[in-house]
């Protein structure tokens, strides 16, 4: 590691500050072809996000939609379904961190992958009815900041999720693609939950 202390010839490689931690192994520069594998998933994800938004804007809100037995109304159904999605998403986050070895001292058990897959599928299938209700009964709205944020995050969530699923099914994608997309999907979902479920609980109280 003596090279750390020699003035690099290229200023672009100069460390910002001397680090006592061992230098992280530099990832091999992704080949152009690896990045190119992301093109189709990202394009399709973008199309999905835009399509969801355009439908939400063009479809005239019906203000009614199929409800679910056991709840007082469609809003409470959505609030609790989204909360369920968030719980599965937390499982997603933890299981993903385990698989990537990011939780110190925890070795991922062999079933972590299965747990990750099925919690993800459950989360997605719970999220779909919420989105359908939002789109069919309310649509994309820009009335107030909370609604704007929620509308846009909703479109982004399904686009990012689609892109992540497509990247999963491809070989030779860059190593950073999955954690990045997964992180974006998770972040969008947390934002969706905050801008809808938490808002509901805070303003209406905890209702079923």
């Amino acid at each position, binding site marked *: 590691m003596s090279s750390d202390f020699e003035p690099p010839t290229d200023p672009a490689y100069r460390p910002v500050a001397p680090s006592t931690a061992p230098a992280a192994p530099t990832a091999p520069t992704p080949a152009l072809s690896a990045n190119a594998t992301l093109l189709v998933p990202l394009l399709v994800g973008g199309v999905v996000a835009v399509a969801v938004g355009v439908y939400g804007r063009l479809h005239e*809100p*019906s203000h009614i939609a*199929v409800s679910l037995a056991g709840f007082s109304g469609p809003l409470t159904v959505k609030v609790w379904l989204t909360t369920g999605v968030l719980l599965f998403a937390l499982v997603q986050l933890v299981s993903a961190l385990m698989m990537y070895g990011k939780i110190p001292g925890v070795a991922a058990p062999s079933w972590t992958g299965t747990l990750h897959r099925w919690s993800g599928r459950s989360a997605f299938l719970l999220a779909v009815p919420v989105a359908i209700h939002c789109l069919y009964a*309310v649509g994309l709205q820009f009335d107030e900041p909370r609604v704007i944020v929620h509308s846009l995050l909703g479109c982004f969530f399904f686009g990012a999720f689609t892109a992540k699923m*497509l990247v999963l099914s491809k070989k030779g994608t860059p190593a950073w693609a999955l954690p990045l997309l997964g992180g974006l999907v998770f972040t969008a979902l947390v934002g969706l939950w905050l801008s809808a479920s938490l808002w509901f609980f805070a303003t209406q109280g905890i209702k079923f």
Partner: protein
Amino acid sequence: MRHKGPIFTLLAGLALAAVLMVLNLTATNRNRNNGDNAANAGANATATTTSELGTAPTTAPATAAPTKAPPAAQVTYAGRGSGGGATIAIAIKDGKAVAYLCDGNRAEAWLQGTASNGELKLAGSGNATLMGSYGNGVAAGAISATGKKWTFAVGTVKAPSGLYRAAANVRNARIVGGWIVLANGEQVGVLNVAGEEQPAPPLNTATNTTTVDGTVITANPVDGTGL
């Protein structure tokens, strides 16, 4: 398997979405037909028919069959204004609009004006004004009335939800009542008895009647062309 699984997940989500969409469309049609049956003269029944399914209504009476005359489309928007307190309804037909704002207690305002090219311009007594826009199922804007200001963004409602008005003379007192029936069936109304405002008695939306001082009076759906 590993490389097909995510695709199956996406397809399963798509299939679930499709099933829910069909259920929603069916429910909307059924609800619309029920609404048409309940509508009194069908005045509000022509509001924004966006029948996505091509299936003919099976239970709708002949008089409530979807009319093919979009220029005369009547649409009513109703909902709560910003900050709660005030409820607003705007009925639009043939470029004209009537709006009603009330708190269900003692404050109310009737406004009349125009609705064209997506723009709302209404005015009422006491310098009440309403400026806003409408279209794509939402009316939004600002109201100034009874010395206060509200902003609103409200969606369309279908009969029997909507705006109702009753005007009658009961025991030599001029009575004017306004009711907004929200999409969930909740009613907000104010009754003006000889210039004094008070909470309105419940309106029976099946018969469009209410009882004031023991006298049954009839309320009419407001379509927007006038009071």
